[in-house]
């Protein structure tokens, strides 16, 4: 257990000031005309592309949906990668779920949340009678009641060690929902999402002591003592809900009145840059903690995201922690300084609703690894360019019998910008990651990309973070006809 905890402590600190400084220094060097002494690209352009694309995926969804298709990719900086992503279709209710999860202090929490959160959401959305069926089948131990159809990449890992424990927790949740549902019949999407998030986080904490007949469950402990952020989109026809907890972000790209690309940010980053969030936390604690509760832009001087799953070091009472840690030498280290009025951290998401219009073209959800390098507007612009480039991948053919050459030329002129924008990556998520890592004053710089992708494992994290990106393309025609 000591090992689990010390590991979580070691990995706790995110990019600190020293690292930022090194990064800036390094990057500024790459901008001078000559390479720094003894620096040469270690990777070939093909190797770079292979590394960038190894986790990319594209999934087409049926025509009778507000989603045409989505493209997703993930690039690791940590070894192993601490980001998780998940995409699934709800089978018992209309709607599709997309999520990105940025883990820290280990991968356990992100792994658990990425596997479990959608189930919690799915059952939270179920009408009473379906919920009843669900409860029956899950208890009968017969065929699992299928809540979700997952879209997984072949490299995605599914952990089955704790499936029995997880299933038991879900069962309890379903039972409770059933008992509540008998009294309430007003469905509220926002409440349902919040309930799912909170309940899952609560279960993660409970499982540490409850599941293994008195003794502590080490694996559950690892989940509870690591942490992860979550940014989840639920799309049902024109209804888009974003539930965000932590510093990942969801952004919609749309065409404004002038036909220009514009950005609609659908989540708030829960980090110290967000004054509302800082104010919220300060208001939840006595005023004498004002200077310690957020210190060095971190929660209690340690944690960057100000909301997260897991991380029970910032949630449980001091006594609980001490009880857990009595037998370790590091107990003092594990309890944060100025730990006076827990809980300091919550997994409660902020839920945004947006009704999609035919002008909304795509939704980007990504972990902070992307947003550290690219701002929202730039990202929307990159996706927009990629779309126009992609439109020209098929050669143009005049189809009708009576084509006037003037008209034909106008069509070709429209394609010109697209041709200029033709990107190296057909997958837009790969395109974004390539831009995030390789951008320079004069376009994408191979030397910089190569450097970013060939860093020794022990320093990679100093230069870049795990990145997960999912871009969901909306079906304009569908949205226009509802």
């Amino acid at each position: 257990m000591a090992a689990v905890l010390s590991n979580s402590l070691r990995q706790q600190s995110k990019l600190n000031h020293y690292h930022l400084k090194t990064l800036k220094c390094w990057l500024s060097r790459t901008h001078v005309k000559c390479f720094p002494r003894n620096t040469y690209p270690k990777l070939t352009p093909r190797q770079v592309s292979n590394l960038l694309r190894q986790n990319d995926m594209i999934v087409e969804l049926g025509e009778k949906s507000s989603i045409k298709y989505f493209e997703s990719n993930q690039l690791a900086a940590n070894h192993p990668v601490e980001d998780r992503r998940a995409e699934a279709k709800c089978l018992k209710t209309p709607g599709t779920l997309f999520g990105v999860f940025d883990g820290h202090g280990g991968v356990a929490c992100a792994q658990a949340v990425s596997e479990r959160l959608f189930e919690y959401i799915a059952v939270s959305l179920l009408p009473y009678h379906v919920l009843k069926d669900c409860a029956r089948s899950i208890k009968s131990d017969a065929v699992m009641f299928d809540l979700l159809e997952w879209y997984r990449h072949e490299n995605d890992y599914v952990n089955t060690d704790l499936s029995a424990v997880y299933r038991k927790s879900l069962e309890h949740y379903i039972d409770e929902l059933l008992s509540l549902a008998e009294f309430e019949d007003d469905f509220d999407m926002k409440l349902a999402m919040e309930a799912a998030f909170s309940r899952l986080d609560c279960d993660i904490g409970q499982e540490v002591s409850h599941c293994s007949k008195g003794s502590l469950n080490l694996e559950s402990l690892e989940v509870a003592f690591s942490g992860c952020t979550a940014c989840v989109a639920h799309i049902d026809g024109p209804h888009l809900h974003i539930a965000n907890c932590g510093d990942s972000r969801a952004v919609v790209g749309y065409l404004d009145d002038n036909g220009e690309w514009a950005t609609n940010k659908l989540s708030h980053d829960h980090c110290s840059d967000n004054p509302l969030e800082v104010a919220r936390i300060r208001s939840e604690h006595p005023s004498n903690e004002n200077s310690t509760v957020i210190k060095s832009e971190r929660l209690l001087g340690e944690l960057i995201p100000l909301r997260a799953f897991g991380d029970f070091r910032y949630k449980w009472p001091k006594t609980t922690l001490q009880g857990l840690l009595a037998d370790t030498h590091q107990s003092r280290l594990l309890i944060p300084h100025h730990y006076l009025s827990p809980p300091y951290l919550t997994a409660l998401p902020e839920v945004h609703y947006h009704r999609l219009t035919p002008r909304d073209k795509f939704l980007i959800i990504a972990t902070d690894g992307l947003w550290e390098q690219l701002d929202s507007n730039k990202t929307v612009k990159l996706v927009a360019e990629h779309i126009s480039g992609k439109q020209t991948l098929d050669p143009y053919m005049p189809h009708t019998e009576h084509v006037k050459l003037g008209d034909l030329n106008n069509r070709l002129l429209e394609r010109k910008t697209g041709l200029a924008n033709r990107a190296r990556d057909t997958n837009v998520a790969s395109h974004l990651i390539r831009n995030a890592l390789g951008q320079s004053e004069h376009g994408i710089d191979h030397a910089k990309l190569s450097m970013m992708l060939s860093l020794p494992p022990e320093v990679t994290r100093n230069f870049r973070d795990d990145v997960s990106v999912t871009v969901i393309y909306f079906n304009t025609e569908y949205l226009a006809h509802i």
Partner: protein
Amino acid sequence: MNLASTLRHGNRIHFKYRNWQLIRDSSTAPVSVPNHARVVVCGGGVIGTSVLYHLTKLGWKDIVLLEQGRLSCGTTWHAAGLIGQMKSGMTETKLAQYSRSLYKELNELDEHTGWKECGSLLVARTRDRMITFHGAAARGKVLGIEVHILTPSEVKTLAPLLRVDDLEGGMWVPTDGVAGPSDIVMTLSSLAKRQGAQVFEDCRVEKVYMKDNAVSKIQTTLGSIECEYFVNCAGMWSYHLARDGTKGKKIRCPLHPVEHFYVVTKPFGIDPMLPVIRDQDGGIYVREWSGGLLAGGFDTVAKPVFHEGVPDDFQFKLFPEDWDHFQELLQAMLHRMPSFHDAELRHMTNGPESFTPDGKFILGEVPEMRNYFVATGMNSHGIVSAGGVGKVMAELIVEGESSVDIWQHDVKRFLDLHNNRKYLKDRATEIVGKVYRIAYPLSDYSTSRKLRTSPLYTRLKSAGAVYSQSCGFERPMWFDIDSEDFMDVDRSFFYRTDNSFGKPIWFDAVREEYFACREGVALIDMSSFTKLELKSASTEVVDFLEHLCSNGVDIPIGHVIHTGMQNYRGGYECDCSLVRLAENHYFIIAPTVQQTRCMRWIRLHLPKDGSVNVSDVTSMYTGINVIGVKSRDLMSEVTEVSVSSADFPFFRCKEIDVGYATGVRALSLSHAGELGWVLYIPNEYALHVYDCLLNAGKSYGVRHAGYLALRSLRVEKLFAHWGQDLTPTTTPLEAGRAFRVKFNRDFIGKEALLAQKENGVCKRFVQLQIHDHDLENDVWPWGGETIYRNGKLCGMCTSAAYGYTLNRQCVIGYVYDKDTKTGNLLPIENDFMLKNAEFQVEIAGKLFPAKVFIYSPKLVSVKAPTSQYVATQPWSANQQAA
């Protein structure tokens, strides 16, 4: 009319990728080829059939044409059939002129060629384009082709559908027209068949065999044919047929196919006699087609295809349409013809078209073996040139020499480097767009560069050298020492023309180099020259060279002479410097472009007993020209050999040490008539010798100079260069170099020269110094200008340069006296130039008075006049003058 043209003229649908085999006449009985033929022509396109036709016209009957598919199936069938006579060069124009008259005559004899004399109308968007029109008009005058220069409103009258408000003017060639490519092929092949030639379709050439280094047998899919001559007219297939289809040899035939486009509209009331319109500044051409228009062009960056090889069955096939690529041209068409907007598309044609690395054709006998001829690489000018090319090829085969001088298109201009696939592919992207682009003076390519470089390349580059290439060899043209950005790779690497026909950007820089070459001392990297060594056990090599060279070669050891190698008509096959290193050992310096040609000429005549050995040592030596009146003093500082005028006079060669380097061949000549030494240095010593010269030269103010300074020096002194002023159709007598011919012995071309001596020459090489030329505002002469004597056309310039000592534009070229009635050239004496003769030179339509010189003019203001060599006199006369 054959099936292909029926399809094209009829209600045409897309038959892209439809296999022709399916709609073939299946009644063709199985045939086999004859066992023997005198000539086997491979390729049933417009070139192959024209060669066949012209061979029969010269009376040869035992000839066979083999076509792997059907006649015209490769590129010919989808050609637009434009017959425009005014091409960029004299040779191309002559070939086109003949083709036009052939197609016209045949058509009048009811031998269908689809000839329609609708004329052609070229429009100019810029003043520079108008300058090129004036050049074309001048060539038209020389060749008797009617050419009119037009104002924009005259353009409008001839073709009302054109937008003219942005035009500078136009050019009208009334005798131009269009023809039917497939019709020409069918007519020429059936005429040839009537004369006894045989044509076999569905017969592919598999292997060419040779015996005693000459063509002996052709193996085909229908049996093998013993033959004397083989002609490769396989179009886009010719590269691989030459390289891989010859037993035991790899024949060079450098070309690369690209995608080539045009669109055809539905009829919209276009006059059938609408002239062919060319808006070259927009890269486009347009002709009438079944009441609509056919419009195509030359894309800026072309798309090479079939890089790995051309499929055998790419017959009557097209590529997928690429509208995005075509948009550039479509835009230009819409711009020029507003009514094109509402015209409806019928179809786009995207077919293969082959281009060579320099945009010239590939003609003649290959250097690798005897009796293997090629006629291919037409650079989209196949139909318009086919008549002339067929005639010239037939003459080369039957008579050994052609009536039109084709040396610029001769396959012997290539080296192995030109056959490199990557080189060809990259160059092909550029060469297509160049077809219509204005050919500015001294312009060069930007693709496939930096291939052959001397060991001094990087040093000279950092000293500001601006490079241009010849045969892939980068040569410094001038040194840009004032620009801040000369270290910029692109800036100094490529020869940057300032895209002007007037005063060039390098004018002042070259003046300084020029005077360093005359009054100071300068270094010129001349490594690109062809260098050969000839040896024999005893003095066989002397006899051999005596036979080959028109000047006497039995000179003392250590002496150097200039000599021509004449062909049987007395023309210059090669012009070179010849050094006798030992009794049995010669060193030959020949022009860069002669590397293959000169070697082949020598090999062709080598004694059969193998007693003379020739080797190409071009790549072993770096050449530095140490030139200028102070060169003697500089040389004396770097070598211990005495370089005094007594010990080391003009036209000697000694192997000397320079610094620590040994084995440096020093030739006391400068190729520009100045005092100087050209040092041929083993490559590994080149940098050392260069540094020695630079260090020692500091106190003499040594400078770098480039080829432009050299050009000015030589044109000012009436020095001739092979390839520009001396060609296989000019003789030493015409060139004023009779003193370099020793008639007291036998040599190739002697009879022809004696006859010319007897009958008198009909043209003379002269220099004209142009008066009243405004350096800043007038168009400069760049070569190719017409010369008038007392108002009558009398010749053309071959080279031009500004003479910095004379402070005048100087041109050199040939003048002649043409009988206006018969069109024959009359013998001329010196009086023709010197007595009662007022000369004028026409530059871009403007006449300038000019003073003629038949000998090198005396140049004053040089501090050491004794160090000058006069090219138009024997050396002895030079010495006496001193």
